[in-house]
């Protein structure tokens, strides 16, 4: 019966197309904007502005100061139980803190921890988005890793930041075997009277560290 359903649907589609396709096939016009025109500094400005509009926090630091910046953030926020994504570079983490490894934690640990730390694959300035590629050991976590905790700290390097959505998809195309998640601000809903509420099911707080 299953094979029959498939054949019947395909036959109906072919019959319909024979009857109702009009005109010659023309190529898809792709004259929309592919790459943006901003210089690096303005691109970063735009990214930061867009993230803040989503209620995400952003800290900017130099590459050499990444570990100490993360240290100050954890101190300020009072985050003690922090878990790092598998493959996240240990050199980017501050001394004097204890980080648990992704590989050794359960769902309940993720649920109860103060925050998780990941990197990302690409970030998009125009939409204020970060894109995670959930490959093994890429430092971006499995999908649940950045979903169950209440706080997500994401390190974005300036060279990972592009301006437009098409630029990001061009970079992602080789990796479509890996699950991808685009994240634009903390989880939110506007289902009740169109009032935006932060943090329905995913992390309520998105903390981005932009490294230039």
């Amino acid at each position, binding site marked *: 019966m299953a094979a029959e359903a498939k054949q019947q649907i395909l036959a109906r589609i072919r019959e319909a197309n024979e009857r*109702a396709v009009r005109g010659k096939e023309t190529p898809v016009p792709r004259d929309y*904007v592919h790459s943006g025109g901003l210089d690096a500094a303005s691109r970063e400005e735009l990214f930061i502005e867009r993230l803040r509009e989503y209620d995400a926090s952003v800290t900017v630091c130099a590459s050499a100061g990444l570990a100490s910046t993360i240290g100050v953030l954890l101190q300020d926020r009072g985050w003690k139980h922090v878990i790092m994504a598998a493959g996240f570079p240990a050199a980017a983490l501050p001394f004097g803190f204890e980080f648990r490894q992704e590989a050794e934690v359960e769902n309940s640990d993720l649920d109860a921890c103060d925050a998780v730390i990941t990197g990302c694959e690409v970030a998009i300035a125009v939409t204020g988005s970060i894109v995670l590629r959930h490959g093994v050991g890429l430092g971006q976590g499995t999908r*649940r890793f950045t979903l169950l905790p209440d706080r997500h700290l994401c390190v974005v390097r300036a060279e990972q930041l592009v301006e437009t*959505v098409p630029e990001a998809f061009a970079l992602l195309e080789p990796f479509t075997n890996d*699950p991808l998640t685009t994240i634009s601000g903390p989880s939110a809903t506007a*289902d*009740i009277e169109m009032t935006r509420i932060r943090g329905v099911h995913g992390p309520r707080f998105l903390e981005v560290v932009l490294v230039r």
Partner: protein
Amino acid sequence: MTVRVGDAAQAPPFQRAALPLLEDSQLRKNVRHATGVIQRKRALVAGELSDWQQLRAAASAIKQQTLRHLDEYLLRFEAACVAAGGQVHWARDADEANAIVLALIRSQNASEVVKIKTMTSDETGLNRALEAGGVHPYETDLAELIVQMGEDRPSHIVVPALHKNRSQVREIFREKMGLPGLGDRPEDLTAAARSYLREKFLRVPVAVCGANFLLADTGGVCIVESEGNGRMCLTLPKTLIAIAGIEKVIPSFRDLEVFLQLLPRSATGERMNPYNSIWTGVREGDGPHQFHVVLLDNGRSGILADAEARQTLHCIRCGACLNACPVYRQTGGHAYGSTYAGPIGAILTPQLQQMRHSQSLPYASSLCGACYEVCPVKINIPEVLIHLRGRVVEQSGLSAEAIGMKAMAAVFSSARRLEAAQRLAQRGQWPWVTDGWIRSLPGMFAGWTAVRDLRAIPRQSFRQWWRERQHGR
């Protein structure tokens, strides 16, 4: 084959269903507020992109191209999805799809499922079929949860509970979640949903979802969402079942660069929605062990056979046309009696049902064109509405109105017949004329004079006057 679109086949005609809703001032206030907010945000963020029109043109062309080779793209999607460890099923109609999903759930010995918002499953009546089969579905989208707990119907394809305000939602949650002290701030209500559902996400072994896009080249699936309930459902349970209309396939991963710019801006007025998930088949150590896709026809291939109306299948379910429609904004979604309300529902619902039901819906429009203007994939909804009105009239055969119209056409197509008719009417009109006006007509003409007065037909027509003038009389 029995095509079903929710309970649309049993729904009363739009014009009748709308009447009591127009008297519900709370509902009208809620709908006006919500659609107004989204519409303003949409206009702002769509206006921000200098290439908005180019993106629309590209999206429309991609959809046209896809439909032209729909059989090939579906086969390509199936092959790629299976190669990545997914399983693909084909369902001719709603019942077949529901049966496939139920059997898959039973094979996991599950008695509960968590669900991501999927209007397609509302179309097939999946929840009812699952309940009848002893499986309890939990809706996890906040709005869908409100609709499910309130034993209500969705009234908008993006914001299904937009007809409810905060105090109405609080009453539903208080009763159904057993929280008598619950406040009515949206924060309180959202927090209640968060704690109610988290336990289900971690426990329930099967999830059901829809799909925003199926990618033919990679076999991937894309789900667009805001709350994170989607990510929960497609990451935590062991089995994931997606139910998707056959028109959801697009040729390639790269095409997302077009649709993911258009959809969030059109749907919720955001530059990007909080979460998009794109995945292919199954992945060891991350996400479900089993992934199924049910490809649903349920009348879609029939729409494809209508050259003028097949553009209906371009729809990406953004809901922009609902928010823009002056008719929807007055009545809300329930008047349409279908899963799909508003202008897109008015063309999609009757067509899915092969024009056998919901024939009143193509008339639920003033043809103002606002829907076409905001449509991110350029569906010319007014054109399709008129085309479908034509089909409804054709179908209804020889009614008194149709005979009348035919007679009128014959009269108006000949000057001689027109003048003869005018003379006849001029002589015969006296019983209804007072002071040069006709204020009420009998029988089927009464509807015409119910809201307007007509000038009586004058003794001399323009043509007669002209002729006499020329002959110098």
